[in-house]
């Protein structure tokens, strides 16, 4: 019973494809791809609508107010009202803007964000797009976002747009480095770039009850935190939302966008967030594996989406809690702290592997990470950074 429930979507797709059994091979291949694409779009656009209203509700609770509660029960139909509003709004294109580039930027940014979702295993046998170098594909597609942001900033012919695009590209390029390097230990330990293999390697339990997720090893926990913070920066969210700092540069690269084009940027940001948390779940939190053996009867995709929603909740929580950081603080943090720690994770993973992947390796890799962490905090002199503020010009 639980096995058939686990495979309900896979068998549903098989049933749909059985209608085409007599068609030639390439028709079945294309139909299979289309089913995957529609399933992916349906699930994640619904999740986007749900997330946009839930985020506002949770932020409202954090800030001691109600949040949207007028449309439908508990304000749940708010996304529909927002969608209609966005659709019928006037689409304003500045007279001096580069029309083609201005139009193509939101298209490109949404397309790349959705492409990145394709390689993540959402459940047992539920990877929409199986490819040998899946992790590499994710980052290759993600690196295109920078060009799209630049097109938005340059095409608008507005200084706020350009400044926002510059800030966004600067922080995306800086944090792409720790983001990719923190993935390396996992790839090293598993010996594969395929998300399916990485999830399969995290199955089973150590000592009989601790799941073999990489987040439960010292290097995995460090890499997970670094990956999570870098992902937060890549999706341009608070506390790292300087590219669209509304108190300084209106809305950054989205200043000259209105109506549905603005909504497309908004959607791309959320989809990018789903993709990066989905990859974090796959790499460190065991993908679709259950945390306890007793709970394995619950279908795999339920576990995946439970982990994904937990990470998304942390994103919203951080947004409600932390103020915006300065540009130079973001850059210093990336190059002076994140990058050395990311390299340490590689060394710690190697130590863990060669010490036999057991309790001894666990302690040794913890020692490596602790040593580098304390050395860094002494070298960077973090204590002196919190001295009373001195003013050079405003005295």
């Amino acid at each position, binding site marked *: 019973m639980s096995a058939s429930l686990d495979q309900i979507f896979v068998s549903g797709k098989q049933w749909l494809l059985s209608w085409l059994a007599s068609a030639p091979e*390439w028709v079945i291949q294309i139909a299979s791809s289309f089913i995957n694409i529609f399933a992916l779009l349906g699930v994640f656009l619904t999740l986007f609508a749900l997330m946009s209203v839930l985020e506002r509700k949770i932020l409202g609770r954090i800030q001691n107010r109600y949040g949207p509660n007028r449309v439908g029960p508990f304000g749940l139909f708010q996304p529909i009202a927002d969608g209609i509003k966005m659709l019928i709004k006037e689409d304003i294109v500045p007279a001096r803007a*580069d029309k*083609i*580039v201005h139009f193509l930027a939101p298209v490109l940014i949404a397309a790349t964000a959705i492409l990145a979702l394709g390689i993540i295993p959402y459940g047992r046998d539920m990877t929409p797009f199986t*490819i*040998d*170098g899946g992790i*590499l*594909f994710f*980052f*290759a*597609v993600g*690196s*295109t976002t*920078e*060009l799209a942001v*630049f*097109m938005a900033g*340059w095409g608008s012919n507005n200084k706020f747009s350009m400044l926002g695009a510059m800030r966004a*590209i600067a922080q995306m*390029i800086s944090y*792409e480095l720790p983001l990719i390097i923190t993935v390396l230990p996992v790839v090293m330990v598993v*010996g*594969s*770039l395929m998300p399916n293999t990485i999830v399969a390697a995290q199955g089973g339990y150590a000592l009989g009850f601790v799941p073999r997720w990489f987040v439960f090893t010292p290097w995995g926990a460090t890499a997970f935190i670094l990956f999570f913070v870098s992902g937060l920066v890549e999706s341009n969210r608070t506390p790292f939302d300087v590219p669209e700092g509304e108190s300084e540069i209106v809305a950054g690269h989205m200043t000259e966008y209105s109506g549905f084009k603005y909504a497309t940027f908004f959607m791309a940001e959320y989809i990018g967030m789903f993709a990066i948390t989905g990859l974090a779940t796959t790499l460190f939190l065991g993908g679709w594996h259950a945390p306890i053996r007793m709970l394995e009867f619950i279908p795999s995709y339920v576990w995946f989406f439970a982990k994904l929603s937990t990470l998304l909740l942390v994103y919203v929580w951080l947004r409600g809690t932390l103020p915006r950081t300065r540009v130079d603080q973001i850059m210093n943090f990336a190059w002076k702290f994140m990058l050395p720690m990311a390299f340490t994770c590689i060394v710690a993973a190697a130590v863990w592997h060669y010490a036999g992947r057991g309790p001894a390796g666990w302690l040794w890799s913890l020692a490596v990470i602790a040593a580098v962490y304390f050395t860094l905090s002494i070298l960077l002199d973090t204590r002196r950074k919190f001295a009373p503020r001195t003013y050079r010009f405003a005295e």
Partner: protein
Amino acid sequence: MNSVAFIVIAIFTLAAGLAAATLQKLMHAALSFAVTFVGIAAFFFLLGAEFVGLVQVFVYIGAVAVLIVFTILLTRRDVEKDRMFNWSGVVIAIAVFGGLIWAILKTQSLSVAAPEIPALTVKRIGEVLMTNYVWPLQCVGLLLTAALVGALILVMEEKQ
């Protein structure tokens, strides 16, 4: 199936390349150049060289295209004004094209039937890079590190 895909990708890539060479605005040309990179990556995918295709997208669109675009942005000084047809460029282009065609047609291996190549997995590329080609890899790494340090020294503020 493959030849249809080849023709579609070829038309796409050539059109983007032509646009990059002829468009009036420099920024449009740079962006169509990025589209050409996508076309070349698609060729690698078609040939079954997944890894090379992904690295092509990663390096050329994520880094090189952004670099070109920024270079144009930071050095733009009315480049649209002094546009005149440059005949020496045409001559050099034709000479390079002719030289390449001559070299390709003279190649011996073209007349031999292509041997059956086993599927190129990322794992195999990694193994070969870490065993047979480890010295070239290290040299490239050293060169890139030197370039990085040099760039940093160039932009570093001089302390009085």
